[in-house]
């Protein structure tokens, strides 16, 4: 059967179209406002930053907060580029390996049968219910006993097995028709080929979304509590150290918050065409 695209716009009036757009603009404003406020805050001079009720505009925009941040950064014992490298390195490595491990684990949970599958799945899902604080102390002890404290590993390893990402990917893999996998198997593809050439392309938008989500997560996590060596600290931790100085440095802190948003934006821009595209068609006709 040939796929027929609906060319004709489904009968909707102009007023309807306008209302939809209006609604989206309003919601978009609500969505964008906190972000806008973050940015505007970093351009306010001190006397405007603490006005209550707060203003959503700047009277005298200033770059002083940024220049203060740069002065503070250039006075550091460890060069700024080192923190930047740490953060970029850790984020890219743990996102790259982590999402792949998650996708690999998701595949058999979605499409295969193996002994102990259901029990293992339930066990893993149960741990979604625990918030991070609960396991903080035992997790630290485990990390210390494995000798991970003050190494890159303590930043990378814990983020490799993310239950949430695995769960999301599995839900999307469930929707791939079995017959597609059977066809690949009949053509002589082994399990890894099926995973890499059939399953992954079919869940690409979800996969890319998880990549961006994971990057953002790792990037913002910081290294407080597990890294005590100055030259291994991550950018958010380093910047929060620098800007922790009360009101005097609150401008620099606002500027730092805005600058830290840039890498997640880059990650998003690089992936957005794949994330936002419509789901790949299953390629199967029943």
């Amino acid at each position, binding site marked *: 059967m040939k796929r027929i695209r609906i060319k004709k716009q489904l009968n909707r009036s102009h007023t309807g179209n306008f209302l*939809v757009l209006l609604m989206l603009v309003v919601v978009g404003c609500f969505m964008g406002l906190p972000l806008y406020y973050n940015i505007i805050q970093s351009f306010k001079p001190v006397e405007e930053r603490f006005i209550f009720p707060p203003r959503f505009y700047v009277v005298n925009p200033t770059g002083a907060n940024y220049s203060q941040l740069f002065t503070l950064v250039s006075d550091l014992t460890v060069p700024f580029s080192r923190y930047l490298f740490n953060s970029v390195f850790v984020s890219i490595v743990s996102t790259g390996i982590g999402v792949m491990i998650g996708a690999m684990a998701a595949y058999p949970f979605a499409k295969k049968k193996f002994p102990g599958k259901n029990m293992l799945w339930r066990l893993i899902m149960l741990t979604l219910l625990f918030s991070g604080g609960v396991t903080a102390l035992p997790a630290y002890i485990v990390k210390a006993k494995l000798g991970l404290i003050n190494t890159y590993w303590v930043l990378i390893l814990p983020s490799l097995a993310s239950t949430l990402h695995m769960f999301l990917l599995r839900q999307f893999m469930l929707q791939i028709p079995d017959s597609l996998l059977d066809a690949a198997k009949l053509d002589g593809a082994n399990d890894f080929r099926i995973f890499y050439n059939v399953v992954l392309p079919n869940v690409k938008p979800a996969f890319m979304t998880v990549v961006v989500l994971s990057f953002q997560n790792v990037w913002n996590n910081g290294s407080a509590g597990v890294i005590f060596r100055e030259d291994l600290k991550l950018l958010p931790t380093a910047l929060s150290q620098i800007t922790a100085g009360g009101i005097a440095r609150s401008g620099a802190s606002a500027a730092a918050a805005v600058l830290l948003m840039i890498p997640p934006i880059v990650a998003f821009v690089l992936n957005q065409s794949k994330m936002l595209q419509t789901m790949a068609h299953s390629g199967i006709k029943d």
Partner: protein
Amino acid sequence: MKRNKRIKIITPNDTAGWMFVLPFVIGFIFLFAKPVAQSLMYSFNNVTVGQEGLVFEPIGWENFKTMLTGDAKFIKALWAMVKEAAVKILVIMFISMFLAILLNEKFAGRLLFRAIMFLPVIFAADQVLSVFNALGGREELQDTTSSFFMMSGEASGFVEEIIGSFGPLSSVIEKFTGYATQLFNLLWSAGIQIILFIIGLQTIPAYLYEVAEMEGATKWETFWKITFPLLTPSILLCLIYTIIDYFNASTNSIVVMIDEYMLGNFDYACAMSWGYSVAIFVIVVIVNAFLSRRVISMD
């Protein structure tokens, strides 16, 4: 939709599955399961810091007894939270489904609006909102919103005057504006759900809509007969995700309470978080049992 007699080539006992799961499971056991199990062990002990590290003194169910009977704070906070969560989670679900349906339509500027809805995924919602919420405590967020709408601080008194002029209705309106100020937080916690719904919508085959159009179904009918039923798997997925996400948010009152106890009374905090997790588990199980029978699948 699918032929019933499909040849099963994937055999029931496929150990290759284990190969794929193994890396995840190893990481999971060492860095997640072990700490979780240990925290359960801690909650049955009186944990103190001695010279040789942690000292354990078994006390049985003592911590749990205190939590359920002695400490009125926990049960009270939990109940308040469940009530609040029920409303908020429903609102999040409704907003995200509605927005996803809008964003799935074809219109000019769709990509831009999709990108805007991705904001909570691109940025850490907690951090972006913390600057915003720190404007002067959460109670005063309402002033912030009204000042935003009037674009100036001085005018917020004006808003209150208007609200006051409605007389007996004013408390209703106040409540409503109170909910409106929560919109920022609710919208920012709906990011993933919108994506889940959009992807769910896109798995609905286009030919079903073609058939519906041929048969002369209205948009309204099409929604209730095709879109909604086939979206039920996504609804269940989103609902469970939202519940877990909501209850485990680091700004959540009970999570904050547990974190506070963590510093002084560690074993009690562990017991509390286990009690909390069990409560979330029960909620998820109930929701799942109630809804999974109503989920309609394409097969």
